[in-house]
């Protein structure tokens, strides 16, 4: 191929030279990069003041016939500083071009293919370069944003490899509509959410993070408003890597490592559990005033059920389901091309086994990005992204008795995993009757997702400064879920085993057509964009289930004796839009942007289908002003202000209609029933955001950063207006409430030391946010207990726990007057905290010396209250049918004991008291944490060695994830959302890798 390319360019050069044959002088030369000395193809070589010129060929050489009066040649190339060179009497001019690193790093993508110099920005945009998370062992790029983008809060919903995640840009603004940002991959608006029903999954898994060039998070109204009705929750633009002209460069990287549990729950041993149980049985009889014989019988009853404390054998169930598991990734990419055609091609393989047995994630991806310039007027861009992902999941996060991560800690520990003859001990006694080792072994939970996110764009220049761009993007995913429950598991055997197959397809496509006019009129610079867009999404699911299998060797539906259900769903929505944006600047000193977008969505009521969204912003580059030009330590200082109104359309596809839905069946006849009250006026949620920001750079950019202050009012919130349920309906959707988010974000990047080859660079960001419900439905100051006017969202509403009465060992709570009560009622509930953090951020320190680099990345969040729902199950003095935490050993035993753990009483209810399992402040804890999220130690081989090995670059590295956590939270993982219950925890990872370029 190299040969072919060379032939083409020789031909091309020959054609060019033919055109200029009439000229009378020939200059030749070679152009190389100052970076690494590589030859640069496609460099434009022009005689100054004329249109006479050529481009360098694949080997970086050029040959140009110049008129005799020519004096100077101009060499220009994207990403490099333009260079002029006097011809003099030379017939050979070899040139070294300096890379314009500053320019490259400061280009920001602002939507619809528009790239803008960061200096000209007036909106609030967080950029994360792909290099910041290259080779990071994460399955999806959104995880990599955690702690790296100010104002963007990333929370894992599950530690399952490839599991779900929530992303909140500047807080939670909506109560009932979605809060997810809009994700756009190379212009394709991708559908968000999970695809598989068999394990926690994330639709963004289809993008290999190593293919990403940069991620831009459009945060304020000014930045995001070009996406109008979909922009209220922020917009995340993902730009994948594209080819660079020049010699084809290959990159290969391999990563190997393992994951292991960060920790498991510290549960009672069988001996300890049996001891507490026995106490509970005896205490229950004591409250009944039973005689000695009955008490002895009760003690024996406990021993019969839970073992005699003296002799019972313990099983550590958690060690049977958690494991150390393997993780590996391989990546290979090639990129190159010439001035006309460039390509980036990459393939990857990722295997991430989970820390819980039988759970894993395997992904293969392929990407081909091609750019072709047919002429100065016409160019094409095509991106093809393919991926296939296989997840073998555990049962999803939550309180399920057959979920291994939940049940392994709760199983009565006096029961072994295997019988003496080696068969599984099943079913188990107690509430957790599944033997999780057996059920995981004999239950298939597999989701296979094949997805493409691809696009094609055509650019045509009507005029050198008037560009037309036509774009079509496709996001198509097919997911097939297989669930097979082998009848060998006793619980599955009752129905003779069951197989469920689901097939989901998501077809989501968008097209847009834009005209872009850009021109500099002296000191006035104008960039105007106008366009139209259409997006459509269709989701379909078909599910079939059969029961009654001969044995575990037959797993297909065809082998099922009884077809059980066939069911399916279909949903669709559409949006059509017109938009325009004008950017203006005066001497790059005074900047202004105005945006207008008109959207129509099928989701909204017939009378309120269209919405107009807009934003305006101003910027003032103080550092360009004369009075600051002489202040040598300031190299950048820019003020930004913006205001705008965006929309949120993330509601159910048919939320505005009065509907009759399926109403079950009876006697094999189908039922229908009213399912929803309609509202023809249902419309957009509005997000009104005002933002002020300051960008700064001091001491030759040794210190750079920004500060942004914002306030966002989410209005016309889609709130279900509660109806009296005796009407038959719980609620009707209306546009009423208001939630305000305000906050401040700091980003500081510093070069602390740069001397003697040693460099220490720090980047730090922290965001403070404040959330408040301003108003709700008319006349209402609360919806239930968790949403209250004047308070933040995310209320934890529980009575306050007052500890244990030292006299008799009973649990006590505070009533509404702060007196002790033994059975709290509704009025005694109060706010115990909020699940939304007050602040979060990240800190990266990079140390480098002679090819060695150490990256240390901390990330954390502060001021939120977590609800430890695991604790609810596991901290009740061993009074229910499952195991408890060892903290329960501190139970009350005799009058005078001061403790928080009440005395065991079988059943958990003292006469006249609320249950020991009453939700209260006992389960609410501070959720603040700081985590050493990542540390990477790398060595780049020196060029002398590289030359000997004929390599362009080589890097070896070791890295660890989730290494240390500082928190007072007593549950498994403070990073997981709000109420930890049966959640698949995150793992600690260690990796070693090699990446080479040639």
């Amino acid at each position, binding site marked *: 191929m190299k040969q072919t390319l060379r032939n083409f360019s020789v031909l091309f050069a020959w054609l060019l030279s033919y055109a200029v044959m009439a000229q009378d002088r020939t200059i030749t030369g070679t152009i190389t990069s100052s970076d690494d000395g590589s030859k640069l193809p496609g460099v434009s070589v022009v005689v100054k003041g004329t249109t006479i010129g050529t481009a360098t060929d694949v080997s970086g050489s050029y040959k140009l016939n110049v008129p005799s009066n020519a004096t100077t040649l101009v060499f220009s190339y994207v990403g490099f500083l333009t260079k002029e060179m006097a011809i003099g009497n030379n017939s050979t001019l070899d040139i070294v071009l300096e890379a314009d690193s500053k320019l490259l790093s400061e280009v920001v993508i602002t939507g619809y293919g528009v790239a803008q110099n960061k200096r000209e920005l007036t909106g609030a945009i967080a950029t994360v370069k792909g290099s910041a998370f290259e080779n990071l062992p994460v399955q999806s790029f959104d995880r990599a944003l955690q702690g790296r983008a100010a104002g963007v809060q990333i929370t894992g919903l599950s530690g399952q490899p490839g599991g779900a995640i929530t992303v909140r840009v500047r807080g939670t603004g909506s109560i009932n509509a979605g809060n997810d940002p809009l994700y756009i991959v190379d212009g394709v608006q991708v559908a968000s959410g999970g695809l598989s029903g068999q394990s926690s999954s994330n639709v963004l898994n289809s993008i290999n993070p190593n293919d990403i060039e940069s991620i831009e998070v459009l945060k304020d109204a000014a930045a995001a408003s070009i996406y109008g009705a979909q922009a209220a929750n922020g917009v995340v633009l993902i730009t994948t890597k594209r080819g660079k002209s020049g010699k084809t460069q290959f990159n290969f990287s391999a990563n190997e490592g393992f994951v292991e549990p960060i920790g498991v729950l510290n549960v009672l041993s069988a001996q300890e559990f049996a001891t507490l149980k026995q106490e509970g049985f005896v205490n229950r009889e004591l409250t009944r005033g039973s005689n000695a014989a009955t008490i002895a019988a009760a003690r024996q009853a406990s021993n019969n059920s839970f073992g005699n404390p003296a002799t019972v054998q313990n099983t550590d169930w958690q060690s049977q389901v958690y494991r150390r598991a393997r993780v590996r990734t391989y990546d290979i990419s090639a990129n190159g091309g010439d001035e006309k055609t460039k390509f980036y091609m990459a393939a990857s393989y990722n295997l991430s086994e989970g820390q819980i047995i039988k759970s894993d994630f395997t992904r293969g991806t392929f990407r081909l990005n091609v750019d072709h310039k047919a002429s100065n007027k016409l160019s094409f861009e095509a991106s093809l992204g393919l991926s296939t992902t296989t997840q073998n999941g555990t049962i999803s996060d939550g309180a399920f008795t057959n979920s291994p991560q939940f049940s392994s800690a709760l199983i009565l520990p006096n029961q072994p995993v295997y019988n003496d003859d080696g068969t599984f001990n099943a079913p188990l006694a107690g509430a957790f009757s599944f033997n999780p080792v057996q059920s995981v072994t004999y239950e298939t939970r597999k989701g296979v997702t094949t997805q493409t996110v691809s696009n094609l764009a055509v650019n045509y220049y009507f005029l050198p400064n008037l560009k037309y761009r036509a774009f079509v993007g496709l996001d198509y995913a097919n997911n097939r879920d297989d669930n097979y429950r082998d009848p060998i598991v006793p619980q599955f055997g009752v129905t003779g085993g069951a197989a469920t197959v689901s097939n989901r397809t998501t077809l989501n496509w968008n097209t847009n057509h834009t005209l872009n006019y850009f021109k500099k009129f002296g000191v006035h610079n104008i960039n105007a964009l106008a366009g139209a867009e259409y997006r459509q999404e269709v989701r379909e699911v078909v599910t079939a289930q059969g029961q009654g299998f001969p044995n575990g060797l037959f797993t297909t539906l065809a082998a099922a004796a009884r077809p059980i259900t066939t069911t399916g769903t279909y949903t669709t929505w559409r949006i*059509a839009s017109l938009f325009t944006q004008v950017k203006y600047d005066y001497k790059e000193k005074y900047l202004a942007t105005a945006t207008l977008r008109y959207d129509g969505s099928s989701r909204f009521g017939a009378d309120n289908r269209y919405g107009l969204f807009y934003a305006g912003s101003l910027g003032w580059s103080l550092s360009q002003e004369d009075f600051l030009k002489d202040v040598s330590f300031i190299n950048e200082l820019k003020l930004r202000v913006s205001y705008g109104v965006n929309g949120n359309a993330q509601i159910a596809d048919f939320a505005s209609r009065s509907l009759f839905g399926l109403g079950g069946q009876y006697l094999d006849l189908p039922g229908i029933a009213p399912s929803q009250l309609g509202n023809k006026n249902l419309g957009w949620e509005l997000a009104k955001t005002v933002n002020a920001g300051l960008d700064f750079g001091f001491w030759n950019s040794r210190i750079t950063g920004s500060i942004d202050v914002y306030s966002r009012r989410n209005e016309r919130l889609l709130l279900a207006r509660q109806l009296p349920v005796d009407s038959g309906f719980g609620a009707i959707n209306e546009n009423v409430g208001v939630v305000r988010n305000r906050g401040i974000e700091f980003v500081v990047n510093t070069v602390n030391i740069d001397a003697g080859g040693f460099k220490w660079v720090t980047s730090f960001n922290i965001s403070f946010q404040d959330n408040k419900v301003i108003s709700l439905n008319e006349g209402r100051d609360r919806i239930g207990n968790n949403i209250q006017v004047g308070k933040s969202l995310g209320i934890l509403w529980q009575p306050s726990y007052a500890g244990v009465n030292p006299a008799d060992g009973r649990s006590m709570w505070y009533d509404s007057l702060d007196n002790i009560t033994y059975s709290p009622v509704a009025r005694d509930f109060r706010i115990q905290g909020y699940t939304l953090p007050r602040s979060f951020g990240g800190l990266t320190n990079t140390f480098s010396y002679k090819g060695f680099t150490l990256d240390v990345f901390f990330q954390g969040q502060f001021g939120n209250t977590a609800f430890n729902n695991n604790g609810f199950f596991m901290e009740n003095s061993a009074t229910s049918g499952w195991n408890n935490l060892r903290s329960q050993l501190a139970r009350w035993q005799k009058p005078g004991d001061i403790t928080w753990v009440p005395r065991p009483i079988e059943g958990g209810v003292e006469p006249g008291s609320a249950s020991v399992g009453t939700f209260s402040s006992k389960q609410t804890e501070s959720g603040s944490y700081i985590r050493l999220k990542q540390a990477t130690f790398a060595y780049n081989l020196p060029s002398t060695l590289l030359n000997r090995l004929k390599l362009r670059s080589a890097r070896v590295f070791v890295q660890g994830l989730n290494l240390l956590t500082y928190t007072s939270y007593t549950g498994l993982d403070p990073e997981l959302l709000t109420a930890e219950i049966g959640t698949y925890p995150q793992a600690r990872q260690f990796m070693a890798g090699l990446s080479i370029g040639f």
Partner: protein
Amino acid sequence: MLKYKNIFIFCFVSFLSLCSVSCSKILDTQPRQSVDSELAIKDITGLRSLLISCYDGLQGAGYYGQRMMIAPDIMADNLRLTNANSNRYFQERVNTIFTSVAGNLWSNVFAYGTINNLNYFLAGIDNANTNEAEKRQLKGEALFLRGLIYFDMARIFSYEPTKVIKQWDAGIVLRTTPTKDASDANFRQRATVVETYQQIEKDLKESIELLSSTTTRQRANKAAAQAILARVYLYWEKWADAVRLSTEALNTTQARLATGAGYADAFRTSPNPESLFEINYVQATETLGSNESMQSLTTQVTGSWADVVPTDELFNLYEANDVRRAMYVSATKQGERVNFIQKFTGARGPWTDNIPVIRFSEVLLIRAEAYAASGQAELALADLNRIRQRSAATLVTGLSGDQLVESILKERRLELAFEGHRWFDLKRKGRDITKAGLSATVPYTDVRILAPIPIPEIQLNPTLKQNPGY
């Protein structure tokens, strides 16, 4: 190059015009699992399906599927939990405050959701495009279901009309017209309990007029409506009416008293030969599964919870030869000796059993109690002894007055265990709720006798009064 230019201009202009001219069209979408309300019940086929959804509303585990059967027994003295259990009915067994037979019935779709469906149906049936016979039949079914649901709610949330204490005579919120849009969903007060009973009586009387006696006993039928109305009169202490209606029901129905030998088998037959009205379950589409089914909760088979067993007090009331004692199998659950009931054994497929709502023997006992309370001891003893004889239990003789009523109440415990009556029987008699010595008795004056109205409803509707003490 000019031709490219034209192509692109054409592209752009045509896209813009597509957007602006036909914008309303390109945004038209239609759901597929649902249809617009107007369309749905235009035709009798829609109305028929609407009525089917009302039967479906009875089936859930929160209503007749499980809760209505178990909770009244475990909240009184009939049932208890095994030592090792899954926490189901954990609070109910000790009557923690805020637990109730089915307080959630107010807020979940089973009750008021179904009531609204019935009201929708009743608003449309008179003008439906079908013959009079079908109209009468379907309308009668709908009125029966509305009466049944309103009565269940009344006995959960209100005192019986004759047993009101502290003048707390609040009934439930009554609605007899559908909620077609938000303006129909106005705030309403609770009717008085007498008004509530009058509405129930009206619905059931009308349905008795409309229904025929020949339809399947798994849908509403004339005898079922008569039997439920007899039950209403028993709670209302209108003895003569209770006698009359139960007699009519017994005469009308095709149900019969099972023999002693066939007693166990009756619960595995569909329909149960004793059922005047029972809820049918089809395993493929309606099973409540191992998590929620009666079978899973009450019997020990692989994968079941088998948490709910009779108290020793109840079990010991059965005479040695009573066929109903043989309905229990003795077993060991994790070292604990227990007796598991065999009324729900997966007769309709794994985890699937029909639910008898009212059986022949209950109607006999209703009549016996009404006779006894109105001084007709001989007639009462005759009905009571029909049950006892069938069960091979010693016959009751020589009793009258309160003693006879006691004996009938005891018989109801024995005959109707696991069918959701004990709490209501104690409550309608104004008795304290005894707990077989397993936890503290709940006095009749206690707040817990009435279920709390869900708090969000009280917060929402200022005219809605909460039951005292919550």
